[in-house]
């Protein structure tokens, strides 16, 4: 009896920051919604219904969740190494760009053939995943290099690299990769045999890949020597150095893996969703992933639940934009901000308890 209450208290304390963040956000966001002249309850209903009501809606949520789970896993890896990877957004764009470039290479190589054999398609898709991974990894490793060898804070470098990524992608879309048949800023379509079809409404099979990656990566962090090195470095660099851990190598590897996983989100967009690269396709998946990663703090259940929740928010906010007069989709950004505020407060309250 006594033991179970202690367990309950410990469990409560453990999840308290996230819980507190949720409650505070609910209260404040309701206030904000009420202030602009909408009914909080109605808005909440719209949000919930649009995110989780019905197959079509829920499949959309799963679609967003795929991206967010990937970016959140990416950010988590860096976070465990003590680095704030704010550049997942840029890394996923570079990943998408590399994915398109891979398609161009494949297309050039097999231009005579009408379609690729299934085996070859699978091979090319694996190559595409690799290309996207390498693109993102390279871009993140730049920030990692600047951090380890040039003492440049990763928050600043990744933010700067985000802007650089946007510009590079924008240039590539409008120049070498431009789709001349349309006025929109988007690249040519990828070849048909490489398009991965959706399996359930809007949800793509890549969701399973994302899940597997999340499980493996988080498992590796807690249960492998590499993960041990990453965490040791992230929590105390001097202690890691004394223990003979190659701190620079570890940080670089964590950052590169982080960027690579973010790059995979770009692959998901190009090969599983729009089959081309559209400028500005990401409603800041990178930053949403950051919020989820901060909330989950390295717990796989937290990552999955957070990805679903924020995917639902993403989807719901789009419908809010349409269905209410005064509320824009940017409400989801405000809500994310409030969650982070709540998280901050919750953590400090936990420390006092």
């Amino acid at each position, binding site marked *: 009896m006594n033991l179970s209450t202690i367990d309950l208290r410990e469990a409560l304390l453990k999840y308290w920051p996230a819980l507190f963040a949720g409650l505070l956000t609910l209260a404040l966001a309701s206030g904000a919604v009420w202030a602009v002249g909408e009914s909080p309850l109605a808005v909440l209903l719209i949000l919930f219904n649009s995110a989780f009501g019905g197959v079509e809606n829920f499949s959309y949520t799963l679609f967003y969740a795929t991206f967010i789970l990937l970016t959140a896993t990416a950010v988590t890896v860096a976070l465990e190494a003590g680095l704030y990877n704010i550049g997942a957004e840029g890394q996923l764009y570079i990943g998408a760009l590399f994915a398109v470039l891979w398609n161009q290479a494949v297309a050039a190589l097999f231009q005579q053939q009408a379609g690729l054999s299934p085996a070859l398609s699978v091979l090319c898709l694996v190559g595409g995943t690799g290309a996207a991974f390498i693109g993102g990894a390279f871009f993140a490793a730049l920030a990692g290099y600047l951090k380890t060898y040039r003492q440049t804070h990763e928050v600043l470098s990744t933010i700067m690299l985000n802007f650089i990524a946007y510009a590079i992608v924008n240039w590539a879309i409008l120049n070498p990769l431009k789709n001349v048949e349309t006025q929109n800023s988007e690249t040519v379509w990828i070849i048909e045999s490489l398009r991965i079809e959706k399996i359930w409404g809007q949800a793509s099979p890549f969701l399973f890949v994302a899940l597997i990656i999340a499980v493996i990566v988080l498992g590796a962090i807690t249960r492998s020597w590499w993960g041990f090195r990453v965490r*040791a470095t992230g*929590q*105390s660099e001097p202690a890691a*150095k*004394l*223990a*003979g*851990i190659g701190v620079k190598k570890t940080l670089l590897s964590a950052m590169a893996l982080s960027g690579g996983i973010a790059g995979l989100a770009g692959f998901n967009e190009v090969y599983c969703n729009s089959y081309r690269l559209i400028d500005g396709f990401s409603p800041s998946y990178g930053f949403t992933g950051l919020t989820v990663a901060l909330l989950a703090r390295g717990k796989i259940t937290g990552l999955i639940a957070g990805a679903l929740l924020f995917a639902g928010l993403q989807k719901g906010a789009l419908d809010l934009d349409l269905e209410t007069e005064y509320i824009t989709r940017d409400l989801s950004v405000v809500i994310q901000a409030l969650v982070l505020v709540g998280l901050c407060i919750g953590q400090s309250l936990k420390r006092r308890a």
Partner: protein
Amino acid sequence: MSFDGRLRSINKSFGLVKANEDLNLHVRAGTIHALVGENGAGKSTAMKILFGMVKPDSGQVIYGQTDVTSAWNPHKAAEHGIGMVHQHFMLALTEKVHDNLVLGFETTKLGFRQRKKERKALEELIETTGLKVPLDARVEDLPVGLQSRCEILKVLYRKARFLILDEPTAVLTPQETEDFLKTLHLLKSRGNTLLIVTHKLKEVMKIADDITVMRAGTTVATRKAKDTDVEELSELMVGRKVCLPRTISKKNSATERPLFELKTSAFHIAIQPGEIVGIGGVEGNGQDSILEALLDPRKLEAERFTILKENVLQYKTAQIRRLPLGIVPPDRHENGLNLSMSLTENLRLGREQCGRAGHAYFGSITASETSLLQEFDVKPPRPSLAASALSGGNQQKLVLARELGQLPNQSVLIAYHPTRGVDVGSIEFIHEKILAAAARDSAILLISSELDELMALSHRIAVFYRGTIARWFHGPHYDEKDIGLAMLTGGLGEKKEARL
């Protein structure tokens, strides 16, 4: 105008930890009063309460005839003429001595500093006290002795008549300490009251008029210095008699090849199996270069560097840590432990290579880790607890469990300050462990600022001075004064050759 200082039935707890319990202290005006006690006896908390940095849960703080308990803070204390010199200096390293001295008591006009007026007052103060410091230098460029002088000046600049000094000699050399004690006498002769907190009983006997002993958060006795001796005081401190381990017999094994040898242009250290070599010296005189050599031998311009017959000159840290070698670093908080990791994970730091050879990493707690915690008496021995939850002494034992507990026979141990911040009971235990390792034919390098410890354990002692070994001393009998002199000046008289 001197005045008494009193604490009356003070109680103070931090969370569940009782720091002070029914504590009473009476410092007579115009005397030097020493407060002695083990680490963790609650001395620092008592001082902070006296100075208003910590509020007591109950009890009274009284100066002269006034009860100042309510709304007491450092600023008010300073206005009352009470000053405090902290154990960790309250000096900003990148700022000038001048700015550090006047902090909080700047001379201003409409918020703007009147540096010239401040300078004049400071120079007068230096003139009258004879405590010379370079006012325009940055604190980080000064040696520790001068920094402690800055702290005293800082207090005097605030016109303090009642000085509280928290372990002021902890980082000083014997000779610097001598100077410092003279300064204290001078201050007393000018009518100041001094309360000095320390655990160095010999100093206390030299200068104090009254001595109060603290144990477990409360005062156990107050004695006049002339009525007591070191033996009685240490018994009061610990609650039982203590004896430092006897010097072990000199090992005659010069013919064997050394297990550890490091030869640079500045020094040469070679340690035989079963030998304990002590390294003394004022902190910052190059002792840390041994640790740096271990962390990255390639950066060091060494002529010879062998550990267990392997030439490690071109090794990376990871390769070095693959050897049967224990390293107890000088600062357990900085790099000895990863405070946010669990006890077991801390035991694994630097043990990866051994693990890789034996078993894969699964994150689970092994039986050997649990028994290691028990063997080294780490309390509480809960393997999943974060290292930050342990007390300082237990953290040190955790480091030792990792670095010393898993060493095979004939290995090497490099231990910096192995007993720093550890209570007396544990010191004995740690010394036994080190002696046991030596008995198993390990080579041990012991770097410590505690001369007593070095003299009790080492076969030989090398004194570092300005980056090189100034002198070697050979046991089993040492002359404390000679060693102290070597620490400060690099040694006078004939320079003994290092035994190779």
